[in-house]
């Protein structure tokens, strides 16, 4: 199960505003892709273009190799989870989930069977929840109903638009974990929109990082992390020290990206600096330390036992292998 999704030279306009510029993207069948980016970067628009909710100004959208550019949403074999869930307030849980099945004119017995199946998938006890009204449920339970409603029609592609942005961290993490399990179990292709890089790595086989209507870089999370295309990617996708490359040697242009966990204390690294500790924060499995040096503030993640405190003058640095250079 699961169909590939491909966008070729897709552009979307809102009036005169070019919301998406020349997007090219390929999502393998069954893959989990996260569209990550700051607000206004076009990630939701891209999702809506795949869903067929927002018309494209130019370019083509393919699902399973078929050109669906001008097909209505219900003929694209997709389901979508909305940021505000979009549950139907006048219907109970059963009828919310059954909505898509009823439109397919399935016999009542079959509808019931599938609704029960979907509710069990999302870990809602059908006997307990089926006849509840939507507003009688907690936020997390509503999320589950919305997910069941999307899954019950057995979509080939599941589109999610920041579905977990308004709920508690604990519940969010649990739902993310369950979504991942369902993704593996049912095999649908998944496209997930978020502005949160922690969610992105939790759910994504691949991440497409967007900015101002364009995809800046797409790849596995580790690729974006270790080999960011530019400063924007380095900064948005994880904590980073970004310094002019000229600090590492005369005549070098561009910027050097060094991850905080690669910064070490002592005299051994390739590139050495001396500075003053201005902040030390305990973060459970490491110390987050900020060191001021050469007019820059360096972030370092150090071992919890490191004897260091604010005001210390320290030698620190990083090895050449941990430096990644970007042009801009």
């Amino acid at each position, binding site marked *: 199960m699961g169909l590939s999704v491909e966008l070729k030279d897709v552009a979307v306009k809102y009036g005169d505003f070019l919301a998406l510029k020349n997007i090219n993207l390929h999502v393998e069948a069954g893959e989990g892709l996260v569209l990550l980016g700051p607000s206004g970067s076009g990630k939701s628009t891209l999702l809506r273009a795949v869903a067929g909710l927002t018309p494209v100004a130019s370019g083509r959208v393919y699902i399973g190799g078929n050109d669906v550019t001008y097909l209505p*949403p219900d003929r694209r074999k*997709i389901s979508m989870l909305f940021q505000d869930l*979009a549950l*139907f*307030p*006048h*219907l109970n849980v059963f009828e919310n989930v059954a*909505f898509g099945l009823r*439109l*397919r004119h399935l016999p009542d017995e079959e509808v019931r069977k599938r609704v029960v199946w979907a509710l069990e998938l999302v870990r809602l006890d059908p006997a307990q929840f089926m006849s509840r009204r939507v507003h009688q449920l907690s936020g997390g339970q509503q999320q589950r109903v919305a997910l069941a409603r999307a899954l019950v029609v057995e979509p080939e592609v599941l589109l999610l638009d920041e579905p977990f942005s308004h709920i508690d961290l604990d519940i969010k993490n649990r739902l993310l974990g369950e979504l991942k399990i369902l993704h593996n179990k049912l095999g649908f292709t998944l496209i997930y929109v978020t502005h949160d890089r922690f969610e992105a790595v939790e759910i994504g086989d691949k991440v497409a990082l967007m900015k101002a209507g364009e995809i800046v870089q797409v790849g596995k999370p580790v690729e974006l992390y270790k080999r960011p295309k530019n400063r924007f990617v380095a900064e948005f996708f994880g904590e980073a020290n970004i310094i002019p490359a000229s600090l590492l040697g005369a005549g070098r242009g561009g910027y050097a990206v060094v991850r905080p966990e690669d910064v070490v204390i002592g005299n051994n690294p390739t590139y050495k600096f001396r500075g003053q500790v201005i902040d030390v924060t305990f973060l459970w499995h490491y110390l987050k330390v900020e060191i001021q040096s050469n007019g820059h503030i360096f972030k370092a993640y150090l071992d919890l036992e490191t004897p260091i405190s604010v005001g210390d003058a320290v030698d620190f640095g990083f090895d050449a292998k941990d430096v990644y250079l970007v042009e801009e």
Partner: protein
Amino acid sequence: MTPLRIYTWVLIVALYVPIGLMVALSFNNSKLPYVWGGFTLRWYEALFGWGQAWQALLNSAVIALAVSFTATLLGIFMAYVLRQDKYIAVSQVAVVMPEVSEALAFAAVLWLVKTYAGIDLFGPVGVFLAHLAYTLPMAHVLLAPYVAYVSRSAVEAARILGASELRTMFSVVMPILMPAFVATFLIVFANSFDTYIKTAFTTSPGFVTAPILLWNYAARGRGDPTIYALATFMLIPSLVAAAIYFRAVKRYG
């Protein structure tokens, strides 16, 4: 109490005093409004024997029901279709048009139809159309904010799940809008039930509504307190409508 509070209550009392006075006069055992002749039910007895009054009430009620049903239904379609349209004002501005100009314009159209097409619509049909034209923008204005409140994503979710636009309208949008629907229905009903001007311009001598009847008697000073009894009786549908409205508001929060 603050002055503003006193002022507000004085105003509210002032609104109800004339109505209370009219109710009192309908029980007054005297034909002269400024003489209290004691309590009586004779005007109500007269009212019950006054066939013309009952016909007029029935006419008003039938027209008002038909108008409020049609205006609410069409209003909800209008509000849905025009929800993001910049020309929404074209429909809504009709609410503030002078009622008498509208009525005259409508009468002129009916005259044209009668003269050139030979179809005489003066009477129930003319009254119905005139009331509808007058209440439809009202229904639109009342419903528009509620339609905007139905989340765009709920509509889109229905579309993705395979519902046609019409099906989405009937299965998702309308049920969510039920409270607004009830409120609009009642307000349109109240307006149609008691409008005089619209009816006066578009009816025929054979089709008399309650407001027309009241006017005919009251304005020409030939009524006895039976017309107060009729007017008092007409308060009942309004009170029922208000009760339904507040119940609905309470229930749907």
